[in-house]
C-alpha cells in the first residue's frame, strides 16, 4: 500500500479522489445540507451564497445537495456497471479462451460484430428497448462493456494456457472447473483489476452522456449528466453555475479513475504501458 503511494503518487491521489466521491455518495443523506428535491420557490436560480454554497437551480433546489446526491447515482452506476461488466467479460472470455476451438471462433466473431457498433449508439439503442431507469443503465453499460472486455480477458487466458503448469494440473486429473478456478482465474486477476478501474471512468462518462441526452437516469433523481442536460440550457444561460458544478464533479471522478487505472496498469502489467 505505502509502496504504491510512494511509487505512484498521482495514482494514489486518483484513488483517494475516487474514494472521496464514493464516500460522498454513500453518505449523501448525512452530508448534504438539503434534500435533493427540496424546492424553495423563493430562491430560484440564486448565485452561490452562505445558505446555498453552490447556488440553486431553476426550481430553487440546493445545487450542493444535488451534486452530492449525484455522486450516489454516478458511483452506483459506475461500480454496479463495472461489477456486472467484469462478471460478463470474465465468464465469456474464460469460456472462449479456455476451451478454444470452434466455440472460441464463434464467440470472437460475435464480439467482433458487436464492436462495430459505437458504444454510445448501442447503449442508446438498448436503453430505447428497455426504457430509462437507473437499473437499466447499469444493465446496459455492464452488458456492453462486458462483451468488449471479454476480448482482453480471453487473451490473458490464452497467455496462461500456454504455461506448463496448466498441462501438469490437467495431467494430474484436475477437472475443467477446478483448473479454471485454481489456476487460470488467479493468474488473470491483474488484467481484471486494471479493466475494472479503466472501465469505471468509461461507465461514469457514458451514464452521464446518456442522462445528458435524456435516456439515462430520469429526474427527479439527480445525475450529473442529467443536471447538465439540454432542457436546463435556458436556465444555464442566466445562471452559468448550473453548468459548472456537475461538470467539475464528473471530471474529477473520471480523472480519479483514469489516474488510478494508469498507475495500476503500470505496476501490474508493464506490457500494456502506453497502450492507450
Amino acid at each position: 500500500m505505502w509502496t504504491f503511494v510512494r511509487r505512484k503518487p498521482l495514482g494514489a491521489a486518483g484513488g483517494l479522489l475516487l474514494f472521496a466521491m464514493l464516500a460522498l455518495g454513500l453518505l449523501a443523506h448525512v452530508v448534504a445540507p438539503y434534500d435533493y428535491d427540496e424546492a424553495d420557490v423563493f430562491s430560484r436560480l440564486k448565485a452561490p451564497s452562505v445558505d446555498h454554497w453552490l447556488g440553486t437551480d431553476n426550481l430553487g433546489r440546493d445545487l450542493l445537495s444535488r451534486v452530492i446526491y449525484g455522486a450516489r447515482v454516478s458511483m452506483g452506476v459506475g461500480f454496479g456497471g463495472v461489477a456486472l461488466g467484469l462478471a460478463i467479460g470474465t465468464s465469456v472470455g474464460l469460456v472462449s479462451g479456455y476451451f478454444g476451438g470452434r466455440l472460441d471462433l464463434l464467440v470472437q466473431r460475435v464480439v467482433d460484430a458487436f464492436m462495430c457498433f459505437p458504444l454510445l449508439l448501442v447503449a442508446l439503442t438498448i436503453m430505447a428497448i428497455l426504457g430509462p431507469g437507473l437499473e437499466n443503465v447499469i444493465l446496459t453499460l455492464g452488458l456492453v462493456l462486458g462483451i468488449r472486455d471479454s476480448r482482453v480477458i480471453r487473451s490473458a487466458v490464452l497467455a496462461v494456457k500456454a504455461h506448463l503448469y496448466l498441462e501438469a494440473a490437467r495431467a494430474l486429473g484436475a477437472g475443467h472447473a477446478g483448473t479454471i478456478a485454481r489456476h487460470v482465474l488467479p493468474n488473470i486477476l491483474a488484467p481484471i483489476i486494471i479493466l475494472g478501474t479503466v472501465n469505471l471512468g468509461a461507465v461514469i462518462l457514458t451514464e452521464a452522456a446518456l442522462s445528458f441526452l435524456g435516456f439515462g437516469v430520469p429526474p427527479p433523481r439527480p445525475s450529473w449528466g442529467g443536471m447538465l442536460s439540454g432542457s436546463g440550457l435556458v436556465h444555464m444561460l442566466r445562471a452559468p453555475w448550473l453548468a459548472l458544478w456537475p461538470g467539475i464533479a464528473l471530471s474529477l471522478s473520471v480523472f480519479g479513475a483514469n489516474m488510478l487505472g494508469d498507475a495500476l496498469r503500470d505496476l501490474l502489467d508493464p506490457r500494456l504501458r502506453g497502450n492507450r
Partner: protein
Amino acid sequence: MVRYAIRRLLLILPTLFLVSLFVFAIVRAIPGDVVDMMLEQFQYGRDADELRARLGLDRPLAVQYARWASGVLRGDLGTSLWTNRPAVRDIAARFPVTMTLSFLSIAISLLVALPIGILAAVRQDSGADYAARSFAVAALSVPNFWLATLIVVLPSYYFQWAPSIGSFTTFGERPGVYLDQFILPALCLGVAQAGTIMRMTRGMMLEVLRQDYVRTAVAKGLGGAAVVLGHGLRNAAIPIVTVIGGQLPFYFGGSIIMEHIFGLPGMGSFVLEAISRRDYPVIQAVNLFVASLVVLSNLLVDLSYGALDPRVRQD
C-alpha cells in the same frame, strides 16, 4: 498484396452477417408494454396486430429475416413509423452533416495530437512532456458534452455572444457559413479525442526512437527532423493509423452529442429523434448503416496496414 486484400475482403462477410443479426434483433426485443405505448402515445397502428404487420413481425422468424435482409440488399432499410418515409432517404440527407463533423474533428485531433505527441516523446520527461501528458489526461477526463455546454453558456453570460444554434445553412446555400457551423462542435470533439491519440503517438514514438536503426540514422549524420519524421514517425505511423481507424465509432458517438447540442441535422440527431419517438425501423436503419460503415473503415485500416507494413501482407 492482392491475395491479402481478397482474404481480408472475404472475412468481412461473416461479420456483416452477424451485424445484421444484431440489428434484426432490435425490433424483436421490444417488450410488450412498449408496444402498448407505441400504440397509445404515437398511434403507430390501430391495434397490436396492425403494428406487428407494419414492423414485419407477422411471419415465421426465418421468413422475416429473409424478407428484411433482401430488402436491405436492395437498399431498403425500412420505413419510418413516424414520417412514413424510407429511412434510407433521411440517412442520405443527413449523412454528409455527420461526415463533415467527423472529418473536421479527426483533422483537429491529428493537428493537436501528432505534434504534441511527437514533441513529448522527443523531449521525454521535460517540462513540455509533463504539460503534454497533463493535457492528454485532462482531455480524457473532461466530458465533451460539458465542454460544449460551457462553450455555449459562458460566452453568452459574460460577453453576450452565442454561437448560432437552431438555423442550419446547407452547403449549397453558403459553403462558408456551412463550414462555420461545424467549427465549435468539431473543436469540442476533436480536442477531447486528441488525448487518446496523443498518448498513443507518444508511446509509439518512444518505442521507435529507441530502435537501433534510429541510432544508426543519427550516427550517419542525419538531422533531427529527418530522423524523427523520416525514421521515427514513419514506423510509428502503423499503430497510429490503426488507432485512428478504430476511433471512428467514438467520433460517431461523439457526433450524436455534438449534433444534439449544436442543433446540426445529422445522423446523430436523427437517431435521437427516432429513439424518443420509439421509431424502431429508423433506429435499426441507423445502427445497420453505422455498423456497416465501421466494418468498411476497419477493412480500409487493415488494407492500409498491409500497404504501410510489408510484414503484414505475407503470412
